């Protein structure tokens, strides 16, 4: 669970600051995996993600004396990882940013005069393993298709569960900018999920 993960990360950082090297391997294991997964979503290439994870950990340990507050370890590591990702910019995934407009995500009412929206029935989602795995794939694909600035916002805020303030620090933008990008990113991911669910529900209905 994320809250437990966060507490564990903070404790590992605290132990390392206090000079307890037995926390070292666990710290490396936790953050290497975390940064690799983030970088894979941000860079889109396994090779790049492996290099980002390694470069980030080097920077983390080289600068470990600068980490004063173990509570800040997650945003601190992600800030370093974010810079390492920038070094791996490739055109396909860091293409010039196309702005997402709110208007594009406004749902429409069904044309029968009712107030019913043309969206999937989200209340009927079965809570089964297969669907959950499929939805994860849809989410990953949707996030990877987002322009980089929106992808970074949703990865840090919703997937990694940093606060708005921490995300703003990692990305070097204001909290207002984080909120704007996050909302558009969520709407884009929601739209992809909705599209998927509608297809699935019409398939089920047809039997």
């Amino acid at each position, binding site marked *: 669970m994320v809250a437990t993960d966060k507490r564990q990360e903070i404790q590992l950082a605290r132990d390392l*600051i206090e*000079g307890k090297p037995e926390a070292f391997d666990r710290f490396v294991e936790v953050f290497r995996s975390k940064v*690799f*997964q983030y970088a*894979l979503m941000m860079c889109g290439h396994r090779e790049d993600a492996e290099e980002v994870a390694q470069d980030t950990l080097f920077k983390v340990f080289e600068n470990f004396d600068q980490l*004063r507050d173990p509570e800040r370890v997650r945003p601190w590591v992600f800030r370093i990882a974010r810079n390492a990702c920038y070094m791996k910019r490739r055109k396909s995934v860091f293409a010039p940013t196309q702005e997402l407009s709110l208007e594009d995500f406004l*749902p429409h*009412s069904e044309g029968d005069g009712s107030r019913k929206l043309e969206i999937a029935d989200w209340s009927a989602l079965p809570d089964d393993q297969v669907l959950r795995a499929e939805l994860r794939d849809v989410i990953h694909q949707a996030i990877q298709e987002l322009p980089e600035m929106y992808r970074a916002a949703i990865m840090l805020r919703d*997937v990694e569960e940093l606060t708005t303030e921490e995300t703003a620090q990692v990305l070097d933008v204001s909290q207002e900018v984080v909120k704007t990008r996050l*909302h558009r990113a969520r709407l884009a991911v929601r739209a992809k999920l909705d599209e998927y669910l509608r297809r699935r529900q019409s398939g089920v209905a047809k039997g």
Partner: protein
Amino acid sequence: METGKHKHDCKEVFALLSEYLDAELDAERCDEIRKHLDDCPPCIEFLESLKRTVSLCHGCQTAEQPPPLNPEVREKLMAAYRKSMQNRARQGL
């Protein structure tokens, strides 16, 4: 999402739904949205789908893992950690 004045309100609410979900709006704005939602089932339906999206994203990291750590790389990382701890000791921290 509706027509006329109500439609205008829907648009305003639509723009603020994430901040509403994240409890990042001031009390006055929050009340306005709550009041609108009380009277607008389509906005509630949309809000629920957005809420579900956010909860599905939580902790939704890819299942991919990096290859095992090369022992030489581990040694280099450990050396960097030791060096930076010596700096910390020199700074009297």
